[in-house]
């Protein structure tokens, strides 16, 4: 793990689960529900993902960008900070912070390529302005830890390297939730390993017992992830669209 997580600002900023999904008053007045709120954040995580594929950045940059976006919305409303601009601006800032700079010009280009919708259309100037506002919203805390590194180490230790791809995919999906704001990354990694071992019928009980971690927490995270997969079938583009439209309405 790069640097020590327990002394990091990431650790100090971890939230209680209840605090991660609080709809801000201006959004609530426009009829945004907790469900809408979650849905929009998920859609924006997907958007960041798509943009990142186009500009070709590392997985780590994507994960950091999504984390920034989720952190922004623990403090700012979506009516004030348009998610369709916050998402690319977070990717822009994350790329810089993770030392693999992406040109704002390139992002503006791919935005147009991905969405023909006018409401997604933002230019270089907008991204740069939003970059500054995001920095402020993040209170200038930029270092984020992710489960990927612990995942690799843990899989090695458990002798489950063949599960790498499967668990890696699970970890990627955790960014569609707010888990990274709530739990230490290595526990998220462990929850994904736990799901994988159950799913693939691999007995890991003794391995988990030897780790000195609270298995209740790990299991709870695992349940949250599984709940998410269960509910995902009911999510459609229309619902996301409807939620985003609410933001534009006058309260």
């Amino acid at each position, binding site marked *: *793990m*790069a*640097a*020590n997580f327990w*002394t*990091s*600002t990431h650790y100090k900023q971890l939230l209680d689960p209840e605090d991660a999904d609080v709809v801000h008053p201006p959004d609530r007045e426009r009829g945004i529900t907790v469900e809408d709120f979650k849905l929009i954040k998920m859609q924006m995580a997907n958007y960041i993902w798509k943009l990142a594929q186009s500009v070709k950045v590392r997985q780590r940059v994507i994960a950091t960008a999504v984390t920034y976006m989720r952190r922004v919305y623990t403090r700012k409303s979506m009516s004030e900070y348009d998610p369709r601009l916050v998402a690319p601006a977070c990717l*822009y*800032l994350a790329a*810089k*912070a993770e*030392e693999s*700079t992406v*040109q*704002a010009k390139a992002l503006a280009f791919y935005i147009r390529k991905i969405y023909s919708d006018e409401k997604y259309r933002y230019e*270089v*100037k907008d*991204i*740069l302005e939003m*970059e*500054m*506002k995001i*920095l*402020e919203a993040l209170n*200038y*805390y*930029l*270092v984020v830890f992710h489960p990927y*590194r612990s995942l690799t180490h843990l899989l090695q230790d458990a002798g489950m390297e063949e599960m790498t791809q499967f668990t890696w995919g699970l970890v990627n999906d955790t960014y569609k939730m707010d888990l990274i704001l709530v739990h230490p990354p290595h526990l998220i990694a462990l929850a994904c390993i736990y799901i994988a071992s159950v799913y693939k019928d691999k007995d890991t009980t003794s391995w988990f017992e030897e780790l000195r971690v609270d298995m209740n927490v790990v299991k709870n995270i695992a349940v949250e992830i599984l709940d998410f997969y269960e509910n995902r079938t009911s999510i459609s583009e229309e619902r996301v669209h409807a939620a985003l439209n609410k933001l534009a309405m006058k309260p």
Partner: protein
Amino acid sequence: MTEMDLSKKVADRYLKREVLGEGTYGVVYKAIDTKTGQVVAIKKIRIGKQKEGVNFTALREIKLLKEIKDPNIIELIDAFPHKGNLHLVFEFMETDLEAVIRDRNIFLSPADIKSYLQMTLKGLAVCHKKWVLHRDMKPNNLLIGPNGQLKLADFGLARIFGSPDRRFTHQVFARWYRAPELLFGTKQYGPAVDVWAAACIFAELLLRRPFLQGSSDIDQLGKIFAAFGTPTASQWPDMVYLPDYVEYQYVPAPPLRSLFPMTSDDALDLLAKMFTYDPKNRISVQQAIEHRYFSSAPLPTVPDKLPRPAPKRESVNSKTSDFNPPEGPTVLSPPRKSRRVMPEREGFEGNAYQNDKFDDHVSEVRTGPGEHTSRNEQVPMSLDFSIFGARPPNRPTINSADRTHLKRKLDLEFQHPE
């Protein structure tokens, strides 16, 4: 600055005072924090419209300083946008180690030197524990506060080195402080590069002038080898595999004692360990802090008893430009600012004198540190012979073909800074 500006508060909190200097990414000015009454230094980071947003170097500094809070690291107190520019608020520091080293009126006792080195290493240890490489250690980045506390500053080149296989640029550090593995072009390096630079600073404290003043990267390696002998394969097995490795003519190492005639055995032992060629065998910062040099007499001076330059008059420094003394180290990437006006350098006259006296002093062994005046401390020899064309004993040579090859390579790197 008009009267109006003086009375106006920035971001409802800071009272602007005089400009302290002009940096690569904007102006630095002094201010009073009305919330705490504290004197602060505010770096204004210019944001070019339609360009690439918040300066990359500034962002690195923000990212790392927000993570590290320590008495020996400069504190980033606040950050705020104002009129489209990002402003970083730092604690105000009176002076820096370079000013201390250059000030002829200051006498540094062995205990003073020990104290300055100890604070430097403590700050560095905090960085390394957080897996941060500073990569720009030099006396003028070691700031000194009003109570004598030394703090590492200028994290614009610093990086987290978590991933073991990530490749870094070797164009870091001012040349005189660059470790040999960097000069040989390594892309995979670790905390040992900061230790080498700290060793250069240690030597500079002892000699009261930069120790290894190379005029080019090739010359820098020459200066290093002249001081410590050309490294052998057994000393540093990986050396020959480094990207820019070239064979240098063999020169034997002169006794280290001859370069630092008045230094204690403990200091010399630590210095040698910090100047170890093979980065794998170089002492770590933590080990250096635990070295007996710091526990043996004389104990390090308490910070607020340390000698410092006389306070500068406020108006003197109100106008500073990007100022790189021609004989100073060239920083390749990114260009650096100089925060303060530096006192007159005495280097050249000093060197000329030392060259003349070279042979007389080599064999002279001095004993008992502490009983010498600062004048005496400046007498030991220089390794910087090149400028005056004095016969350079044992000057390492490389053939001209190699030199052309390397120069071309270096030129390319100048054209495409990272």
